């Protein structure tokens, strides 16, 4: 007698296979934790942005005359202090990266065709590079005597 189990289904090779339950997870899903870090970044940057952006709005729009006193002289006064330069630089980078990651999520949710997703993200990342480069350049190279 051969050691076969009675009535067991006979398997003939060929068709699609189902992975055995204890096989390693497919490498595609474990390559990086990018989405986890993105999720965490939204929350951490969000907490900082609440302070940075609401402080910015308070100074620019609410306190001491609000928008009516904003002008070149006002900017020159504020950016003469490294404290406010740093405030604006950190706020710029956090806000832009927070916004880019938010819009990336929205594109992934609503743009279904690969081509559409590609071009929308290309546009998004290009705009982010412009904003970060230009904003950083302006903060670092501001010249209060440019007019004279």
């Amino acid at each position, binding site marked *: 007698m051969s050691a076969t189990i009675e009535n067991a289904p006979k398997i003939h090779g060929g068709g699609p296979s189902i992975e055995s339950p204890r096989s390693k997870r497919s490498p595609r899903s474990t390559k990086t934790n990018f989405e986890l870090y993105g999720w965490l970044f939204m*929350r951490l940057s*969000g*907490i900082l*942005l*609440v302070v940075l*952006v*609401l402080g910015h*709005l308070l100074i620019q*729009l*609410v*306190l001491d*005359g*609000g*928008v*009516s006193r*904003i*002008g*070149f*002289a006002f*900017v020159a006064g504020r950016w003469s202090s490294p404290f406010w330069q740093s405030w604006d630089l950190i706020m*710029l980078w956090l*806000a*832009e990266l927070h*916004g*880019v990651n*938010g*819009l990336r999520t*929205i594109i992934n949710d609503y743009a279904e065709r690969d081509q559409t997703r590609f071009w929308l993200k290309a546009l998004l990342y290009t*705009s982010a590079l412009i*904003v970060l480069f*230009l*904003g950083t*350049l*302006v903060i670092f*190279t*501001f*010249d209060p005597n*440019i*007019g004279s």
Partner: protein
Amino acid sequence: MPAGTLYRGREGMWSWVAHRVTGVLIFFFLFAHVLDTALVRVSPEAYDQTIDIYKNPFVNLLEYGLVAAILFHALNGLRIIAVDFWEKGPRYQKHMLWTVLAVWLILMAASLPRILEHTIKTIFGS
């Protein structure tokens, strides 16, 4: 569409929608705002002329709308963090949304005369 299959979330879904909409609005404003600020590298005159747009009564009203969007996004963002990290967060998500809206309303009312002060003075005289 067969009856009863359309998902109609309540407070949770609408706060999620509002968070997305305000987020996109703020992102587009940030793009424009970095460009207008960059004019300080061109000349004081170019910058001041552009900033005068912000002092137009209609644009001043849009600034109040921008503050409304940012305040909601900020307060609701803190609520999202509480839902994610506080063990009782999910159970109190609706209560927290009503708290967010109450705080939003108070801050909007309190800041209205200050933010629109320039417009009020321009239209009704000093």
